[in-house]
């Protein structure tokens, strides 16, 4: 690590070097603990602040899209709005329904936030800037993600409210349905990189041919995989147009209706953190993580973490834009889309990745390109056709909410 730090640009590695400097001053007995704390603290600082920024950004962006100003009272251009919100959440009364299951009701947001934070452990936010480099990193990420569902259920169930229960059920059904395509969509990258470790995946995309980076995005399966991943991620993080779990119009706010005050804020935070994490994973898998978009010195000198956060912001803007643009789906559309379009396409994509891998690269790259693109395009068209056709809708009955 030291070596890597040395031969990398100093600006790029400033945080790493700082960490090492701090560790050098701590007694050896405490070093593991210290290094852990030192690496965790920034995460705990950076991402919540990013969350704060995002809230403002989202509200203002949506406001603009809807021909209004958005928050503009607190501070310059309403930039202090998140602070006001945080204070409000903190001083608000924490209402717990009388019938609620106290313990679970309390633990649900905690676990949620904890899981959301833990997910960041394997995300490289810069060169040599990853908390732990597990060689099953991606698996870890998904494992932690699966814990989120449980916390959602706890929240919805413990508040003993039909709406929250309905919201929880919707959320879980949706998350499970989209977790499968999410994983399957990320498999090609893992295949190509030959490793589950996020760091290795990023490193595999680090090089450049000419000025073009080796991002997986720039392969046919990469494009498709990225698209699928993006859709699945949107749904996984309950963002519009997949925000049925908190459909304000039908079930007021989904599984955390009965939460108020700081717990509510925690849910809010956790959701955004989850969104960030998923986006970060997408960046890691397809957008070359922290690597620069073009192999020119002007870009490469820019520190890696800058690039990472730039891409992340891009994701955030994309999400905001989508939210402002698209209407909400119906439940059956949601499910049908997951099981009838994304899943087959993801499977096909895996196959195509194998194809890509075993087709000869050097002489006729273009032919490889065309073949894989064709193999992917045809079913895509067919499946979207099949999605279009009208189907008779049955009355949906929730058997668990009787």
């Amino acid at each position, binding site marked *: 690590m030291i070596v890597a730090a040395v031969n990398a640009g100093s600006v790029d590695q400033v945080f790493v070097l700082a960490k090492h400097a701090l560790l050098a001053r701590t007694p050896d007995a405490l070093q593991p603990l210290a290094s852990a704390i030192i690496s965790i603290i920034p995460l705990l600082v950076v991402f919540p602040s990013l969350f704060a920024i995002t809230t403002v950004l989202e509200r203002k962006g949506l406001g603009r899209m809807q021909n209004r100003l958005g928050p503009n009272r607190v501070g310059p251009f309403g930039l202090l709005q998140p602070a006001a919100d945080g204070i409000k959440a903190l001083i608000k009364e924490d209402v717990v329904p009388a019938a609620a299951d106290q313990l679970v009701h309390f633990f649900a947001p905690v676990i949620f936030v904890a899981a959301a934070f833990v997910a960041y452990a394997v995300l490289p936010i810069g060169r040599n800037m990853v908390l732990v480099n597990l060689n099953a990193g991606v*698996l870890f990420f998904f494992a932690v*993600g699966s814990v989120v569902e*449980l916390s959602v259920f706890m929240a919805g169930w413990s508040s003993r409210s039909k709406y929250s229960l309905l919201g929880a059920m919707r959320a879980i*059904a949706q998350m*499970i349905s989209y977790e499968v395509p999410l994983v399957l969509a990320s498999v090609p990258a893992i295949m190509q990189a030959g490793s589950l470790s996020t760091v290795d995946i990023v490193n595999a995309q680090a090089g450049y041919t000419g000025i073009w980076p080796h991002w997986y995005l720039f392969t046919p399966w990469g494009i498709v995989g990225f698209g699928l991943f993006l859709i699945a991620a949107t749904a996984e993080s309950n963002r519009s147009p997949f925000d049925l779990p908190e459909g304000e119009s039908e079930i007021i706010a989904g599984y955390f209706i009965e939460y108020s005050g700081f717990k509510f804020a925690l849910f809010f935070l956790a959701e955004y953190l989850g969104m960030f994490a998923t986006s970060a994973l997408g960046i890691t898998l397809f957008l070359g993580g922290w690597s620069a978009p073009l192999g020119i010195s002007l870009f490469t000198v820019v520190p890696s973490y800058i690039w990472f956060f730039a891409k992340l912001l891009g994701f955030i803007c994309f999400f905001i834009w989508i939210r402002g643009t698209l209407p909400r789906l119906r439940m059956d559309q949601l499910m049908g889309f997951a*099981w009838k379009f994304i899943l087959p396409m993801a499977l096909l994509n895996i196959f195509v990745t194998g194809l890509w891998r075993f087709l000869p690269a050097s002489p006729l790259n273009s032919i490889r390109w065309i073949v894989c693109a064709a193999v992917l395009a045809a079913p895509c068209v067919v499946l979207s056709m099949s999605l279009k056709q009208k189907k008779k809708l049955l*009355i949906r*009955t929730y058997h668990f909410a009787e």
Partner: protein
Amino acid sequence: MTATFLILAAITVAGTAAAMGLRNAVHCVLALTAGFAGLAGLYLYLGAQFVGFTQIMVYVGAVAILAVFAVMMTHNPGEPEEIFSRFWVWGAVIAGAVFLTLARAIRLAFAPADATPATPAPSTTVQQIGDALMHRYVLPLEIIGLLLTAALIGAVIIAMDPKDDPTLEEDAE
């Protein structure tokens, strides 16, 4: 015999014991997830990273959710809440006996003298596991895949009520 092991073991035992002992079925399942998490921790502690994460993913992410859904769907407010069956004393006694005999056997199996040197955890990367799965254990892998497919379809078919709408099956998943 490190502290980590003891803590994880405590979590696991507590969680599972609660899962088997609590009154509310949902609490049971939640406690069970805690127990499984502890178990996954143990796997990690024992150096089986992949298995640990798989454990979390499968049990916490899938089985627990499934169980919770099942509990919700089969929740029948009308029926009296008697959690233990009539002969629960016998059951407990037998379980205790089983544990005692097993423990006795284990104790006897290890002579008090031998203290195996704490060998460093073997570094098993995912690549190795993948190679093993793809070469040596490819046939079991295929069979497992087949089994999972069959189980998926079978579960859907069984759980689907012909009267109900087909969207029920996603929930049952």
